[in-house]
């Protein structure tokens, strides 16, 4: 498996920590998923210190922490958030989100490249949430990113890989860059699909957290990414238009 800024992930699943019915279910889902990376965020601290209890629970999971800049709409906001995240979570990793459109939560790729350049210069290891655009991908790599995270579909939509053609092209164009499908996963088959294309990991949250049984779904996702990864390594057959008998024709008894 490829290294993410020098770190080998224990498995190809990155799991978000938001929207679970309870902290206990979040914790059980993580353990069931075996995910090696947890995404987290920063929000205003309340009087009761809610953030401290959450931090204590996440730390006990023993997983790698990937803080995000979710909800940021400007370079300045994202860069400031990244600095705060680095201090709070004590990691140079940052999932860089720069939202450009309210309904689709589509990344603003122009600001994304600019923020990635600034943060890389300031010593961050940037995981950019981007689109499947190859030129943007090139610019992000030139800005210093060593990982790319194209969307499968809009965040929380559960639509799967909206543009499989472009995701395949990205995989072919950047064979040595760790690539993660981030967002848009619905059922586990979507996650398996991403892995079958040769992606190195899948990042998802809503698909598990909002499932009727998040713990069971977390386990299903773990199995799916494992199946997809193994399938990719096994070199799947190409589709064809016409049937090809799998049972040998030669030697069939003549009975008509």
């Amino acid at each position: 498996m490829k290294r993410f800024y020098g770190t080998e992930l224990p498995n190809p699943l990155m799991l978000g920590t938001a929207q679970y019915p309870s902290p206990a279910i979040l914790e059980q889902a993580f353990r069931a998923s075996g995910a090696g990376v947890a995404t987290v965020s920063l929000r205003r601290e309340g009087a009761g210190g809610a953030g401290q209890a959450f931090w204590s629970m996440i730390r006990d999971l023993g997983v790698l922490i990937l803080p995000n800049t979710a909800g940021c709409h400007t370079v300045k906001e994202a860069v400031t958030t990244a600095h705060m995240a680095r201090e709070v979570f004590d990691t140079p990793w940052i999932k860089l989100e720069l939202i450009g459109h309210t309904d689709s939560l589509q990344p603003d790729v122009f600001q994304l490249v600019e923020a990635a350049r600034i943060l890389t210069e300031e010593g961050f290891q940037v995981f950019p949430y981007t689109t499947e655009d190859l030129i943007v991908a090139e610019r992000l790599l030139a800005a210093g990113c060593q990982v790319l995270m194209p969307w499968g579909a809009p965040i929380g939509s559960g639509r799967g890989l909206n543009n499989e053609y472009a995701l395949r092209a990205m995989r072919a164009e950047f064979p040595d860059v760790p690539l993660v499908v981030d967002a848009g996963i619905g059922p586990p088959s979507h996650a398996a699909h991403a892995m079958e294309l040769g992606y190195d990991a899948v990042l998802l949250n809503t698909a598990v957290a909002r499932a009727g049984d998040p713990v069971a779904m977390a386990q299903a996702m773990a199995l799916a990414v494992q199946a997809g990864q193994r399938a990719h390594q096994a070199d799947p057959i190409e589709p064809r238009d016409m049937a090809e008998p799998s049972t040998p024709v030669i030697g069939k008894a003549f009975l008509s």
Partner: protein
Amino acid sequence: MKIVINGEPREVNAETLGELLAECCFSGRVATAVNEEFVPSSLRIAHKLAEGDRVEVVAPMQGG
């Protein structure tokens, strides 16, 4: 002095950011910004507050 902390106007005695965190009982893992500029924890004690400053105090939270 009146400052705005996490969007709420508040009258405080603190003169520095470090004193403000203590006065408002923030502890543990938090990060701070004053007037939209990040202030690292090492500089909080020395960071003088001014009337009307907007202070943000953030902590770990669930995220995707």
